[in-house]
């Protein structure tokens, strides 16, 4: 089956939250048909790789099939958290957008249902 690579935000939206030195990031499918692709490709290993430069100690993924959503919990990823980090964004509010840029392979037959204008896709996007 032919596939193409698109950024995750074309299949899902999400939000990050913080408690102490732990961040959680939701990934919510724009429609149920995308959910299996998220389950298959947006896994703990992929998220750990993406955030590796922040030296997290663990990533846990929770599935919410009735909401067509994933919830990632990333431990020790906030440089100590809101009161200890020197980051301007000490809450990690922006981190959902780091995850939402993850490249995901989508069957081309699903491509017409992707969100966002096709012209706005990133340079990471390729077909094969």
């Amino acid at each position: 089956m032919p596939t193409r690579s698109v950024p995750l935000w074309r299949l899902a939206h999400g939000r990050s939250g913080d408690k102490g030195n732990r961040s959680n990031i939701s990934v919510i499918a724009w429609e149920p048909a995308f959910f299996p692709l998220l389950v298959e490709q947006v896994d703990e290993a992929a998220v750990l790789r993406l955030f590796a430069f922040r030296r997290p100690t663990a990533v846990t993924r929770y599935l919410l099939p009735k909401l067509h959503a994933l919830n990632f919990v990333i431990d020790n990823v906030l440089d100590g958290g809101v009161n200890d980090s020197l980051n301007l964004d000490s809450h990690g509010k922006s981190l959902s957008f780091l995850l939402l840029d993850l490249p995901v392979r989508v069957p081309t037959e699903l491509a017409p249902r992707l969100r966002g204008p096709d012209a706005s896709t990133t340079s990471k996007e390729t077909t094969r």
Partner: protein
Amino acid sequence: MDVLRIGCAAGFSGDRTDAAIGVVDALVAAGGPAFLIFETLAERTLALAQLARRKDPDGGYEPLLVDMLRPVLARCLRHDIRIVSNFGAANPEGAARRIRALALELGLPAPVIAVIHGDDVSGLEHRAALEAAPPTSLDARTIVSANAYIGAEAVARALEAGAQVVVGGRLADPSLTVGPAMAHFGWRADDWDRLGRATMVGHLLECGAQVSGGYYADPGLKDVPGMARLGYPITEIADDGTAIITKPAGSGGRVDAHTVKEQLLYEIHDPTAYLTPDVVADIGDAEVDELAADRVRLTGVRGHRRPDTLKVNICFESGWQAEGEISYAGARADARARLAAETIRQRMADAGRLRVDLIGSCSVFGDDDGHLLAATGARASGDVRMRVALRHSDREEAQRLEREVLALYCCGPAGGGGVRTSLRPTLGTRSCLLPRELVPIRFELLD
């Protein structure tokens, strides 16, 4: 069907102070039993309030208290819309007295105001328990505040006693919704499923416009109308705890399945075990349905027995944070900004870890140790703002960073402009768990 409406007019200290007006308009128009809640505390807020109270024994409550209440207090009292909030912060009784004074200023009869006591565990009588509670290691730190997250029961009892306004300190955010529902429907404190459902409704409301489209907005992908006149959320909650989330008719914003899902999972870890003082809420099988425009129903939430312990947040003085920024633009801007950072790093080598950001190139995604920045190549040209930040226990040492950034004006690199620096005291936090019996909670009607 008996429906209770609860509107939320603040999601944090510093939220829009005109938010309550549209919410109260909608509650009045709907008629029927209704509450207005304000959620104004975050991890740092209470410590800042405690510091304010040290300077002024009558202060230490939400600084915007009067701005929040003045536009709506008269209508709330006239239409029997009762008010529940944690805006008492470090001084709930002080807030209650200020609210009574505001009512008198507005020519209203003094309302019945309840004050919730017991969340503040910073006193010496609690010190041994805090030291003993894992994983705290306070050593000789200077504690600024220590507050237990407390639940809905005292709120419900205060409402049953006739309070028109209930003022607390560290009332847990969702408990602001659970308390009114418990009182209105007469739920027992161990009716775990109902408490779990109301808790997640409270969780949806507690950040204000985060559920009603504001924080959701991302133009071109997630368009939201009327961002400058957002409607704050209102729930219609039923006796079984299921609820509809909506917002005032004609207001800006959006309530749909996607805005609700984003907020439902906000700050959630294990979705089957969301711990609060009232219940362990479980959204593992939760569902959201769009019933109509800006009307979403939440179902399928369960609840489990509440934890035996209460979470305590302890804030202590942790030193000083200094920051400095300077801008570079045009050809080789990125390289000049990096040279500026390296220059500061060498001159501050003995002051500990220095964080560097190149705003416009690599900043908030980056880590304090600079791994991402180091892996990000310099761009040929651009418009970047170099930021450096450090923390130090000694004020003078931290302040040295401000002077070093300022000196870049003449010492270079070339074309650096717009220096801004700041220095502020910092607060650290730790949390621990205390057995419930060590944190007795009670309410008192203001005499």
